[in-house]
């Protein structure tokens, strides 16, 4: 495979959804309406932590069109992907502002919405847990009284009753204490930032019905169709075979649509109206507050090195603000421990990563799964230590960058295949950002241009049995349908899978029809579309399906051409003799079986099936973290150049560089766009975004009026994206996952750049001029 010149893989094929999307013709899940559709709206908590003393629905029932009101006591059970700690509807008490308390179902959306304002809920306020620092104290009020009693859904989650700890993951590698004592230069630094939101363009939406035969039919904008089945089976006792999940194209997800939140609510709503089709669609404000958001973090990083700048010891304490429920934050706690050091070779590592409950909206996966957050803390500390050691920040990173032969914090051995090339990435990024022209350049009165750099890595902590499947069917014209359950959420996965198939079959992309939607009844099982795993898992499944189809095509052709399958090759829409390519048969003549002039037919249609499952992944040891949690590490470098006004701390971003070792790049154009989009998102987060809580834990900026995101026109003046392509031996055509990576280093390199420009160590996000001004003021005092 490696010495063949590829024709489709590696070329910038146009996205197969480009025309539909740019003409506005895509129908998302919320765009459908059918006669008889009912509408559900939520009553949400107005308190961040309170006992529910009564719920009075009398007035709500008086609104015309109201068909049902569902409250928490009708389903007083806990659900969750890792730890079952979250009731779909709050019962007994509420744990965050905006938490679903009741569902009203009505004939029309406006009726349901009006009725929600008539449900009277009385609360008895409880003490608020308003930060991870407060939650971590011994005598803190408890968000969950008995966290230790909740059912564990997967391994590696360790809740502690009587505390606000939802999980605690440990890394113990080498001997940190002795190593720390011997370090010639050390640094300890603390960082913190609040929870924030995904702000996907499409707000979350679902439709659920329970048909008279007992089948539960779910339409949703989810990254996890098979998890929806699992949740409805596990917690609602529906036979898994009786649950059908349909996912049309998704309008942006960024991890936020991995959580199964709306579907159980809509299921309860449908059940309350005799199984009728019920739609539940979040308004923007609900999507931001009631739906799960992005973690907050308090991080303390200690690094120790020799005088020459060799890192010797690292200690990392991560307090993740998971909000009211652990959801994926418990998994992010683990992921943050696994990659706690960043891509550095540190022989002695100690990490305590805690998933902390607070009375904030609950957090779930967000593009990068903890890595953008830990990278901010690690890379800021690396810069500060380099400064202390008087070593150039890029040189310091090259000196300590991780390489094949080293081990990860969980003591996974690294090889040339499972880790990218740190040094190559650093050197190329250094050239692109013109590092050697100077990190800080005065350009006028109160104006400087400064550069900052960030190294990063990530492995994908999939389930150890994470897998994907693919099915190929053929049309009479010889074109191919590709069905698999990878979700198209704007990342271009279906285009990339189409390219992999086209390459494997030696076929034009025009002859490949990729089904854009997903249906769990006819698409083979796929774990989830998260963790930058689809190119790898589904890509391998597509290759395997293509090989399966090729074998069938060759078999039919060998009969027609009176030879053996081994004599044949497939390509250009034909099956032909290797020694004499002019002697062959067209795929269209054999794809649905070959028919002789006599009418006799042989072999029938080709149906290609393929699958791929993760190999050799293991859970982690509870005491030391030892284990092999992910298949490979992609590494990369990001850098920005900013123009800063040193008088008022306003700034603009001039250049943004990403150099990523993503293995083989299947589609350089969509990959580049992923990096641009990632940086944009990371810089938006870094400059503008966070939830603001009052002292009662109530979110003050629940909508886009007061929750700014970076706007079009405020992006870096120029993006420079390049790839280093160190092939991953087991990836499809040598590819690794790249979906999340563009976002990971953005906040860190911006903060490094601004720290140089303002001459103050910045430790908080977002980096508004006010935050910088505040840091300068504190420093002066």
């Amino acid at each position, binding site marked *: 495979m490696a010495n063949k010149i590829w024709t489709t893989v590696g070329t910038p094929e146009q996205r197969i959804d480009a025309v539909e999307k740019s003409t506005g013709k895509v129908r998302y899940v919320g765009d459908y309406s059918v006669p008889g559709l009912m509408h559900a709206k939520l009553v949400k908590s107005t308190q961040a932590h309170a006992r529910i003393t009564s719920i009075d629905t009398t007035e709500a029932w008086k609104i015309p069109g109201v068909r049902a009101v569902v409250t928490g006591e009708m389903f007083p059970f806990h659900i969750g992907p890792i730890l079952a700690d979250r009731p779909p509807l709050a019962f007994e008490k509420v744990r965050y502002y905006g938490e679903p308390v009741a569902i009203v179902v009505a004939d029309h959306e406006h*009726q349901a919405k009006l009725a929600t304002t008539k449900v009277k809920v009385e609360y008895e306020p409880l003490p608020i847990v308003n930060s991870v620092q407060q939650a971590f104290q011994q005598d803190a009020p408890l968000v969950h009284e008995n966290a230790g009693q909740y059912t564990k859904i997967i391994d590696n989650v360790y809740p502690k009753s009587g505390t606000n700890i939802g999980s605690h993951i440990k890394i113990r590698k080498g001997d940190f204490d002795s190593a720390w004592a011997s370090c010639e230069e050390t640094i300890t630094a603390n960082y913190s930032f609040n929870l924030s939101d995904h702000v996907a363009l499409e707000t979350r939406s679902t439709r659920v019905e329970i048909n008279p035969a007992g089948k539960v039919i779910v339409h949703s904008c989810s990254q996890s169709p098979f998890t929806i089945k699992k949740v409805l089976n596990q917690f609602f006792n529906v036979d898994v075979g009786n649950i059908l999940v349909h996912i049309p194209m998704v309008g942006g997800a960024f991890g936020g649509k991995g959580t199964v939140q709306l579907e159980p609510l809509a299921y309860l709503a449908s059940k309350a109206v005799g199984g009728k089709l019920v739609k539940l669609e979040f308004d923007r404000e609900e999507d931001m507050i009631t739906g799960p958001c992005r973690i907050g973090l308090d991080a303390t990083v200690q690094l120790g090195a020799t005088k020459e700048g060799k890192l010797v010891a690292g200690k990392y304490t991560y307090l993740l603000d998971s909000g009211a429920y652990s959801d994926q934050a418990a998994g992010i706690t683990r992921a943050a421990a696994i990659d706690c050091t960043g891509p550095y070779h540190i022989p002695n590592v100690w990490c305590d990563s805690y998933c902390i409950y607070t009375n904030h909206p609950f957090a779930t996966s967000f593009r990068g799964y903890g890595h953008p957050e830990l990278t901010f803390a690690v890379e800021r500390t690396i810069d500060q230590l380099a400064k202390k050691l008087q070593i150039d920040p890029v040189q310091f990173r090259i000196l300590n960058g991780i390489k094949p032969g080293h081990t990860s914090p969980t003591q996974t051995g690294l090889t040339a295949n499972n880790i990218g090339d740190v040094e190559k990435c650093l050197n190329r990024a250094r050239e692109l950002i013109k590092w050697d022209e100077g990190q800080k350049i005065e350009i006028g009165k109160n104006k400087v241009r400064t550069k900052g750099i960030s190294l990063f890595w990530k492995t994908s902590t999939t389930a150890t049995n994470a897998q994907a499947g693919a099915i190929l069917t053929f049309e009479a014209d010889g074109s191919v349908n590709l069905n698999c359950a990878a979700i198209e959420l704007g990342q271009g996965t279906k285009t990339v899978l189409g390219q992999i198939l086209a390459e494997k079959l030696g076929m034009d992309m025009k002859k490949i029809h990729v089904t854009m939607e997903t249906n769990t009844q006819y698409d083979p099982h796929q774990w989830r579309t998260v963790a930058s795993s689809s190119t790898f898992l589904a890509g391998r499944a597509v290759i395997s399906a293509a090989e399966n189809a090729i074998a069938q095509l060759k078999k039919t052709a060998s009969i027609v051409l009176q030879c053996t399958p081994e004599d044949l090759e497939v390509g250009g829409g034909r099956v032909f003799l290797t020694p004499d390519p002019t002697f062959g048969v067209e795929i269209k003549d054999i794809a649905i079986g070959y028919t002789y002039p006599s009418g006799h037919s042989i072999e029938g249609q080709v149906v290609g099936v393929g699958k791929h499952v993760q190999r050799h992944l293991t859970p982690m040891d509870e005491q030391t973290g030892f284990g092999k949690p992910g298949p490979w590490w992609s590494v990369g470098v990001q850098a920005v150049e900013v123009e800063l006004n040193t008088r008022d701390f306003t700034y603009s971003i001039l250049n943004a560089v990403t150099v990523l070792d993503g293995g083989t790049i299947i589609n350089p154009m969509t990959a580049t766009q992923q990096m641009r989009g990632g940086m944009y998102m990371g810089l938006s987060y870094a400059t503008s975004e966070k939830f603001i809580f009052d002292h009662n834990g109530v979110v003050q900026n629940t909508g886009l009026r007061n929750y*700014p995101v970076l706007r079009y026109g405020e992006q870096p003046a120029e993006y420079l994206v390049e790839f280093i392509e160190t092939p991953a031996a087991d990836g499809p055509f040598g590819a690794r996952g790249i979906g999340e990576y563009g976002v990971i280093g953005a906040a860190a390199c911006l903060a490094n750049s601004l720290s140089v420009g303002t001459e103050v160590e910045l430790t908080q996000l977002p980096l*508004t001029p006010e935050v910088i001004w505040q840091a300068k003021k504190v420093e002066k005092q």
Partner: protein
Amino acid sequence: MIAFDFNYIKPATVAEANQTYTMVHDQGDHAMYFSGGTEIITRARVNELKVDTVIDIKEIAECTVMEVQDDKLVIGAAMSLNHITNSNLFPLLGETIKKIADHTSRNKITIGGNINSELIYKESVLPLLLVDAKVKLVKGTKEKIVPLSSVFDKKLKVQAGELLLQVIIDTEYTKLPYASLKKTRFSKVGYPVISAAAIVKDKKIRIAFSGVCEYPFRSQEVENILNDSKKSVSERIEKAINSLPTNVLDDLQGSNEYRVFVLRNMLYDIMEEMGMGE
């Protein structure tokens, strides 16, 4: 989606608008004049506002004028911010309101709506206060033209049912040197940390602010201090900051102390720009 039902009336004349308002009011219902609708729609959607009847004024001829009549510039209350900016009839006003919201919203937001905004910023008022603008108000059959400053105290003080028809400006003011500055939290689009507009007339600076206090204002005291040429510019600025009508605002856009920092820088910049710096 707006959950409640309401009536939408689009009268063609002022008289009809007033009659409708009175009729709804007499029935004990709540009526509101409706112009661009950006606030009514967005606030109604999140249950912050309830109304029985909205009366759209965009078909009323007096509300949609924008022209110079003799030595007066007359701007109808229903003129959109973008229309006013693009006309270039009053550059300071055009520039100041161009910093409100985003382009798409400014196609909808009208000057009358912004003066009457429920939000605390109302930046279109700033230039109007500086140029002693007048407003034409109508209630029933009674029309009156009064100085804006006589009816604007923190917000537009009009009686129930009284409709703001027009803003009237002496054209001589539109040619004066001016400055318009706005600082936001980060994005160019957003509520002000501080927004300020200034002109110089007869060698004296006039200045009005939004984002400093809980309402937009022009202060004679602050202007007197800034025009006191016996003192150094920095002394004047410090004194002006200490002579604001209330404590400086402290909210999501910026803390009290940070706003003072931004205000100070902005005052230096405006004095400089207006040729009054050191």
